[in-house]
């Protein structure tokens, strides 16, 4: 039955990409360690070896050939004849990038471009041709090793003519000299086969060998049992029988030899043409001298593997998942078990309530209430458990940074060290996938703009190598990710001037330090005189903040000039559920995400100020907060349209505050976010909808969106002259 190999391709691609991640991690580990950990070398080797094996099995010759060269180098590293220096590691890293590209090309169904791999292969060959600092001084420059065949193996054995044993064989063979008439077209062969006693212990069974021979043609066997010891000395796992076989078949000597290729060094074998009188001089003598005894039963080695290696491999596997944004997720079985337990408890509660329901009377009211409480608890626990399934440790997102920082710092000549902490902090898979790019941008920014050149650092009394810390932890219902650098920090004055220059603020604007720092998120703001290739490529900081807002999070900045900066990202743990404050405006109930609420208050008339062009501001401590009447914004009816005695919910997003005028504050509760897009479309100012306990639909306010809408309006109002001209 023909097996279609194509069904295995996708798994091969996935595992090869994972292997490349593991290879990269291993290479980075080796490059940063004083002495390479053999486990790392093994991991790197195995990754290359697996890819080579799989690619040749599935017919991807370009990849197989390329990987073969890598494997040759890595083999030398593995057996100690070569230490991997920076040059080798760089070459290997580049090769892993190249392999990744080749595999991605195959996955997408495109042709492989060998123009990238050819120069690398050449570089490898040069490297392989020159031996380097080896531990064993008998190293010979090894080119890509040549395949050895089984016949090569057997021909390497000694061709000893042991006359005595030949005689022995002949005399014990009995009728071995009888000639048999041969059939025309086929050859008659005479085979003498004397296996070593332990042949059975390697799982080889003479009977099966004879079966193979018999399948080739006509086989006649004669056994010599003269060597079987006395019964009381007999051990049943040893073979004392030898045979003479006559095979009449249209086969060559090599064909017969092939049948015995596995046991060639565990037996004495002669293959002659049956009508020759004398035995041919070639004989195969077992390498008895070199052959060790069958291994004594050893204690199975305890799995004393440095835990780093498998973890790295596992972490590497998961890294490729998060960046690929795949539609599947690996779940620890403990999470699944926990879920199963909770479902079990839910079922118990359900049947208890069901039983109460049949034959209910008012006496049972209290039990009903406690049953409902139990139900609430079960549901909450179930909800948490299910959400946990979607959560993965942030290490997956962190994993791309060691390589990135290594490459980046080399590229721009700065010395940067990376410290990671809180890698096990878990967050929603989708949130992690979407925060990955913003994080990359922030780290690039920190290195590009935040980190000083080594000379400058030394001159400032700092260590030559700067440090970037990535830190993650849970706080309340959120995850906090910090990107901390010990670079030159943000210069508030510089930022302020730049913003004035760019017309983002006027010279008279008063801003707090926090607000000045937040200016770097303003669209079009870039402090670099020349937009650097690394961080300025159109992905601005404004997009970073927007992406974070879109996830329901926020970003804050702390900085000390000369000492460094901290960018702190707050993100919700899940995208499916929101903690919200229900508010009422007229007949409508809206949900305001709690994460955006600063405070809710009763309006005091004296703190209200009208400013140029219909802006009504509320003085909240030192801020002037624009008042936004929801009923106006959404063109609906409200109970209270006056500002006096109104209820204001002050919210914050993207560094700005606005106050929402509402009629009533209702409860705070967790709501399930439902998209409006499935049956309708996105609505400005609304981020989604939810279904309340009474079955009615309630809109969830998009605070950053509303704030953007208001500030756009503000900036339009500032330039009335321009508006008139824009016909």
């Amino acid at each position: 039955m023909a097996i279609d190999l194509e069904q295995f391709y996708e798994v091969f691609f996935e595992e090869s990409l994972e292997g490349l991640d593991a290879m990269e991690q291993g290479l980075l580990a080796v490059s940063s360690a004083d002495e390479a950990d053999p486990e790392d070398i093994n991991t790197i080797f195995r990754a290359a070896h697996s890819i080579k094996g799989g690619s040749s099995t599935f017919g991807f010759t370009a990849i197989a050939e390329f990987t073969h060269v890598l494997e040759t180098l890595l083999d030398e590293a593995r057996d100690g004849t070569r230490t991997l220096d920076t040059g080798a590691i760089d070459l290997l890293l580049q090769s892993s990038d190249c392999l990744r590209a080749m595999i991605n090309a195959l996955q997408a169904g495109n042709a492989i471009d060998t123009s990238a791999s050819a120069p690398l292969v050449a570089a490898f060959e040069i490297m392989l041709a020159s031996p380097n600092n080896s531990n064993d001084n008998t190293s010979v420059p090894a080119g890509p090793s040549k395949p050895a065949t089984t016949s090569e193996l057997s021909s390497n054995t000694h061709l000893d003519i042991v006359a005595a044993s030949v005689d022995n064989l002949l005399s014990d063979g009995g009728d071995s000299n009888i000639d048999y008439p041969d059939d025309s077209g086929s050859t008659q062969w005479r085979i003498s086969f004397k296996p070593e006693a332990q042949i059975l212990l390697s799982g080889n069974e003479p009977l099966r060998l004879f079966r193979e021979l018999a399948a080739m043609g006509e086989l006649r066997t004669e056994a010599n049992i003269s060597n079987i010891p006395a019964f009381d000395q007999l051990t049943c796992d040893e073979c004392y029988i030898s045979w003479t076989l006559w095979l009449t078949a249209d086969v060559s000597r090599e064909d017969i030899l092939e049948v015995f290729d596995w046991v060639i060094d565990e037996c004495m074998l002669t293959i002659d043409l049956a009508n020759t009188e004398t035995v041919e001089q070639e004989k195969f003598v077992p390498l008895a001298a070199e052959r060790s005894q069958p291994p004594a039963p050893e204690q199975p080695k305890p799995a004393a593997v440095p835990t780093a290696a498998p973890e790295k491999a596992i972490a590497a596997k998961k890294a490729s998942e998060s960046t690929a944004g795949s539609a599947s997720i690996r779940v620890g079985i403990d999470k699944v078990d926990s879920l199963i337990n909770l479902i079990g408890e839910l079922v118990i509660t359900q049947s208890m309530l069901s039983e109460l329901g049949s034959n209910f009377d008012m006496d049972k009211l209290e039990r009903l209430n406690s049953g409902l409480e139990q139900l609430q608890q079960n549901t909450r626990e179930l909800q948490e458990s299910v959400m946990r399934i979607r959560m993965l440790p942030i290490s997956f997102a962190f994993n791309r940074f060691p390589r990135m920082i290594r490459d980046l710092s080399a590229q721009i000549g700065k010395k940067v060290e990376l410290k990671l902490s809180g890698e096990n902090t878990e967050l929603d898979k989708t949130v992690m996938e979407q925060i990955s790019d913003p994080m990359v941008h922030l780290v690039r920014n920190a290195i590009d703009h935040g980190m000083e050149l080594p000379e400058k650092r030394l001159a400032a009394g700092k260590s030559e190598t700067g440090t970037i810390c990535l830190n993650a932890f849970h706080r309340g219902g959120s995850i906090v990710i910090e990107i901390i650098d010990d670079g030159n920090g943000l210069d508030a004055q510089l930022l302020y001037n730049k913003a004035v220059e760019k017309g983002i603020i006027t010279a008279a604007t008063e801003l707090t330090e926090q607000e000045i720092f937040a200016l770097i998120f303003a669209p079009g703001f870039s402090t670099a005189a020349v937009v650097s290739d690394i961080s300025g490529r159109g992905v601005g900081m404004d997009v970073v903040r927007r992406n974070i807002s879109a996830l329901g999070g926020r970003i804050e900045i702390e900085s000390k000039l000369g000492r460094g900066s901290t960018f702190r990202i707050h993100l919700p743990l899940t995208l499916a559920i929101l903690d919200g404050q229900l508010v009422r405006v007229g007949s409508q109930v809206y949900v305001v995400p709690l994460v955006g609420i600063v405070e809710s208050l009763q309006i005091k008339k004296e703190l209200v100020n009208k400013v140029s062009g219909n802006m009504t501001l509320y003085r909240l401590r030192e801020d002037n907060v624009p008042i936004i009447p929801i009923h106006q914004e959404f063109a609906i009816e409200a109970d209270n349209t006056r500002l006096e005695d109104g209820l204001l919910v002050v919210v914050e997003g993207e560094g700005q505050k606005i106050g929402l005028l509402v009629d009533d504050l209702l409860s705070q509760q967790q709501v399930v976010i439902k998209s409006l897009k499935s049956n309708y479309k996105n609505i400005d100012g609304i981020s989604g909808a939810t279904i309340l306990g009474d079955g009615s639909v309630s809109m969830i306010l998009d605070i950053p969106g509303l704030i953007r809408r208001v500030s756009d309006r503000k900036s339009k109002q500032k330039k009335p002259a321009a508006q008139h001209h824009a016909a």
Partner: protein
Amino acid sequence: MDIQELAKTVPVEGEITLDGLDFISNGEEYLTFGLGEEHYGVDILCVNEIRSWELPTLIPNSPEYIKGVINIRGSIIPIIDLRIRFDVGEATYTESTVVIVLTIDSPELKRMMGFVVDAVSDVLNAQSSEITKAPLFGGIIPAEMIEGLINVGSNVVTILAIEQLLALEEDTDD
């Protein structure tokens, strides 16, 4: 008192499903309904259910004919008043006002929407040959929404094209 039994006797508000209706295989079947004095019809296979009118949640800054959204078994479904959309009859909301929930499930579009109409009439059995082309001029209803006209006795039933009916402006943006 058995609560479960009691629950079964409580009428579910306004829900009439089409389960149990036999579908005759020859020709097409159309659910007909009235808007003002006029008669309209839609392919019955697209009719998910018929509900009585309930007050929807408003959608901020939406056209007048989009009354809002309601919850149908956990899905958020927009409600469109055809009387306003087509400017036919009077948009009043009484006990007999009915919402026809239509679904479309094609590779290009998967959507469910509810349409407010004055009343639901019979199921019309018609062959595609009986559908005549509607005049291109004169009507308020966009021509692409009309599949054609069918004469039923002395009346004319306008058959609406489901895909265009359930489309929003965004869908046609290129």
